[in-house]
């Protein structure tokens, strides 16, 4: 990210290079530029040459925490760059005993929010953009010899638009200056809109969304709470659901996928971003977050690893969503 003429990538590279070259970490998980200018992909850096490719820009949406699970099998100590959501994902994985925290060096990157290419396309008004420039909360989209400037908030990823915690928590080192607190007054507005519909209209909505599901499980692969060694969808004994992409099976998969995240989902939105057919998966996750918060007190997964997830505990005077007469 080179906003206001500061090369943040270089700054980050400087800090992590020291740790990597001194052997404090065996591997650094970061980002590098992908095939297109609007893509940044994971970087697995082992030496100075790898580090040269490190990039921190407005397209580093990929959550790197998940890669720790596998990388720690082969490396003693791994450094990882974490945005706000990624840091909570790390906490989630630590809480689930998937990542031994003492073998991770977490470098926090306060995050201004990542950009959505689809929104940029829209902002470019039909022209194919070939790059952007950012300054003071504005994004200038260049393309076809024309420059169009839009407010940054308008071209953010959906997951970033409703982000409450852009500053990483529980990191070993914060590499950049914290960004300002964020409000997300519309975090649950899509959920509320759906709630206001009739049962039948809601069913029709989801039926339409879920019939597109290819059962590719990209949502699961991207998710930091999906940490099972064998997912229930693939088990043979018992066979929870068949492999066919069939409406009731798709409902079953998505309802249980969301339910398995009840009280655990950090709302990072990686599932929805990973979905190749654009199913609004985060709506299901947020529905659970909203209800559990309403019923059992405010809880944000991944924020405080010492706090017990709400479905693993109880109070004798808890309310219920059914009649207790």
């Amino acid at each position, binding site marked *: 990210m080179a906003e206001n003429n500061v090369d943040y990538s270089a700054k980050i590279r400087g800090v992590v290079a020291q740790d990597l070259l001194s052997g404090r970490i065996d591997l650094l998980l970061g980002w590098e530029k992908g095939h297109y200018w609007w893509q940044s992909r994971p970087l697995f850096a082992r030496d100075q040459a790898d580090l040269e490719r490190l990039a921190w820009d407005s397209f580093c949406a990929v959550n790197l925490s998940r890669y720790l699970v596998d990388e720690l*099998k082969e490396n003693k100590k791994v450094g990882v760059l974490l945005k706000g959501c990624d840091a909570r994902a790390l906490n989630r994985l630590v809480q689930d005993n*998937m990542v031994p925290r003492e073998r991770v060096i977490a470098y926090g990157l306060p995050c201004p929010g990542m950009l959505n290419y689809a929104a940029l396309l829209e902002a470019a008004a039909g022209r194919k953009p070939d790059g952007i420039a950012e300054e003071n909360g504005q994004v200038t989209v260049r393309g076809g010899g024309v420059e169009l400037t839009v407010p940054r908030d308008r071209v953010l990823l959906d997951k970033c638009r409703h982000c409450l915690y852009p500053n990483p928590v529980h990191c070993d080192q914060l590499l950049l200056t914290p960004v300002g607190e964020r409000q997300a007054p519309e975090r649950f507005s899509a959920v509320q809109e759906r709630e206001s519909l009739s049962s039948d209209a809601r069913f029709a909505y989801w039926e339409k969304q879920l019939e597109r599901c290819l059962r590719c499980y990209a949502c699961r692969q991207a998710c930091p709470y999906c940490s*099972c*060694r*064998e997912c*229930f969808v693939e088990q043979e004994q*018992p066979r*929870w659901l068949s492999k066919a992409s069939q409406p009731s099976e798709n409902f079953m998969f998505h309802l249980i996928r969301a339910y*398995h995240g009840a009280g655990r989902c950090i709302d990072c939105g990686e599932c929805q971003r990973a979905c190749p057919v654009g199913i609004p998966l985060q709506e299901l996750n947020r529905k659970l977050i909203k209800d559990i918060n309403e019923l059992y007190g405010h809880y944000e997964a991944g924020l405080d690893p010492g706090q017990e997830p709400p479905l*693993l505990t109880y109070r004798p005077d808890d309310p219920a969503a059914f009649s207790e007469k």
Partner: protein
Amino acid sequence: MPRVGVFICWCGTNIAGTVDIETVVETARNFPGVVHTADYRYLCSEIGQDLIKEAIKNEKLEQVVVGTCSPRMHESTFRKAVAEAGLNPFLLEVANLREHCSWVHQDKTEATAKAIALLRAAAAKAVLNAPLIAPRLDVEKRALVIGGGIAGIQAALDIAEAGYPVDVVEREPSIGGRMAQLEKTFPTLDCAACILTPKMVEAAQHPQINLLTYSEVEEVKGFVGQFDVKIRQKARAIDATKCTGCGVCYEKCPTKTESEFEMGLAKRKAIYVPFPQAVPNVPVIDRDNCLYFRKGRCRICEKECPPQAVYFEQQDQILERRYGAIVVATGFDQLNPVEYGEYAYGQHPDVLTSLEFERFFNAAGPTGGKVVRLSDGKPPRNVVFIQCVGSRDKARGMNYCSKICCMFTAKQAILLKEKVPEARSYVFYIDVRTAGKGYEEFQRRAAEQYGVAYLRGQVGKVFPDGDRLTVKGVDSLSGKTIEIQADMVVLAAASVARGDAAQVGRVIGINSDQYHFFNEAHPKLKPVETHTAGIFIAGACQAPKDIPDSVAQASAAAVKAVGLLAKEKLQGEACTARVDQSGCSGCLYCEAVCPYGAISAVQIEEHFRGEKLTRIVAEVNAALCQGCGSCTVACRSGSINLQGYTNAQILAEVDAICL
């Protein structure tokens, strides 16, 4: 596919009257795996059971399904029959065709269809049944009694007399409990000390009983037969092996403080025994009040002690010991009525609780056995007893009856009349409850022979009025307002659970009701058992209770404990959770929801690309697991499963019922 046999019981006409047995049997023949079907008038009879046993042998059955009454009724009967025929007893499934079908439906077509569905589900589950073996558990042949009141003493004596060693943990410096504070007991008016003290001495001298006074249970781990308990023996600052109980130390001690035993109505020294008959007769130094512990000087007791038993440097000791059974008898408290402002308790010295008033009758009590007003030392003429203070009080969320108050109030009114013949007693009551042998007669005697005036109604307010108290109430029988000028007011404050009962329950691992009284396993049929196997309850920690009930319950709890200790081995739960370690990711959510601490983490080694890696997975201690299955739901990958109710089995039942 295993060879399944299906057996349908007519239960006389109980099932056959509503369910078409022939259709059911015909249909069952087509269930997957079924190779044999039969029906009989009474399957639970010996002939019926033989029918099953013979079919198992002749037809080489591997799974048995019975369509009978509720499994809660005869599951164990048929398990035994199956076992006698050489099959594992858990290769049996019961379809409830009576309680859940023939008895609740009248239409024969409907009931038959439902019977078929239930039977099909049972058969689908049976096909997936696996042989299970209940773990056999060792029994540590020693009991722990928590609480040294009359219930605890009785339980300890009974267990010891049966030949097993018992440790009694009492948090106060002496055993004796609430009963030691009483002057007389109803309905016989014998002196409490006269019947309690011999029991206390007997317990102290019994070769099988080990008293751990001034001690508290800090941790209970383990399970029935093998409870591992940590007990903190608080430092008395006295070497009990040297102390002769001469009492010189507390005579010489310069510091006075309120006596807990006397309900704060009298003073004791900083080094003290709580009451003269204390067992053991070994003093304790109260470190919060002792001059030496507070300011580092004094040591008079140490200087004066003839056998040199004072030992200031003594430290708390932690005793770790294993017990086979535990009896909890931690007793009760009397409600502090200070929040009940209408009775002026705490605002006027002559408004007392009944336990405080009890001490006035005792020769060693705060007034030397004289019943006098604390305000002016004069004997009272009018005494008003107010019943149900904090009991049967819906408005304050205290719905229950404290059970003993009607009787102890009658007792105190009688004792008062004997001490102060000119005194008059008035009792404001909601109902007089005197169920118990000789109780009604006793209460009638108070009213008829001792002239105690019983007024049915509630007291609205007690006003301090000069040196007297005005009690305003309503007589609900006549509807008239009553005003009495009283010299003393005695509040029958509710019997409540100990202030820390909920916390104690958590440490021990038993649950309590909304008032924090410990819960029995069944209100009628398991009154001294708890939901935790091997832990029993006795006395007023379970609910308000008088002495005879507490003693009876203590003996009952003792028998249960002895019955357990007498066993060579215990049979554990067979349907326990089991972890598939290859699928387990080690998140340990199962551990978090397990109510028994039966799940823990273990490290396993795995090979990954030629290298050895270690990771943690969950492991179930089958001896601790009670088979609730909560863990199976916390496990997203289904890597922990409940034997006897596996995920595959429940899914098969669902599928079969919906077919």
